[in-house]
């Protein structure tokens, strides 16, 4: 999967969040932009 691809506009927030989770589960590091988006999406989808 292409976490190394870059995503520009979040068209499918849940799909992107799941993609980040999947990538991290595979040990793929997120870059800064992806980390910011991941934290942003986490606020939407993870109940704390």
């Amino acid at each position, binding site marked *: *999967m*292409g976490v190394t*691809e*870059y*995503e*520009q*506009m*979040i*068209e*499918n*927030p849940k*799909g*992107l969040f*799941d*993609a980040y989770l*999947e990538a991290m589960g595979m040990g793929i590091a997120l*870059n*800064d*932009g992806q*980390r*910011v*988006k991941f*934290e*942003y999406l*986490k*606020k939407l989808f993870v109940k704390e």
Partner: protein
Amino acid sequence: MNSFVNLGNSSGGEYVIATYWQAVSSASGTIQIPPGSTILLNQFPDLEDAVASETSGGLPTFNAATSGGNRVVSTFDVLGNYTLSPVPSFPIALVFRVLIVTSAIDYGSANVIVEDIRRPGGGGLVDGASNVGGGMEVFKQLTSASLQFRTLTAGTNVTISQSANNLTINASGGGGGNNYFPGGWV
């Protein structure tokens, strides 16, 4: 398999709402407004204009910054001026939203989050205005994200006063004259 979206800059004429953040290291100041954008206020819960976020590794966590157990609240205006209270430990990230033309977005920047929200409220963004009827035209033009209208100027023997919801036009003097009609004055 999830996929990533790459829209390129082909949709350059459209406006979107984007979330930006900037690291700040003082209790008040002015953030740099992203080129091609207009700051939007009242975009966050409780009608906050901007959110002060904790940072981790220099990046926002989107968890509210606190100081002494109190949530840090930010004032913010359309010019990018902010103040933080109570004063937190720095750096923090100030998170705000803008209306921005897609061609001006630096998609490679870690400081912007662009969601595909092109028609907030389900109604669609305003992209202009029109004058109706055959009279003088009040609406002038749309420039960037701003609708521009002509102002009203009082002419001779006319005053115009402005209140919160009304413009009042008064005429003074004159009046009482006779009108000439064919066949004589009436």
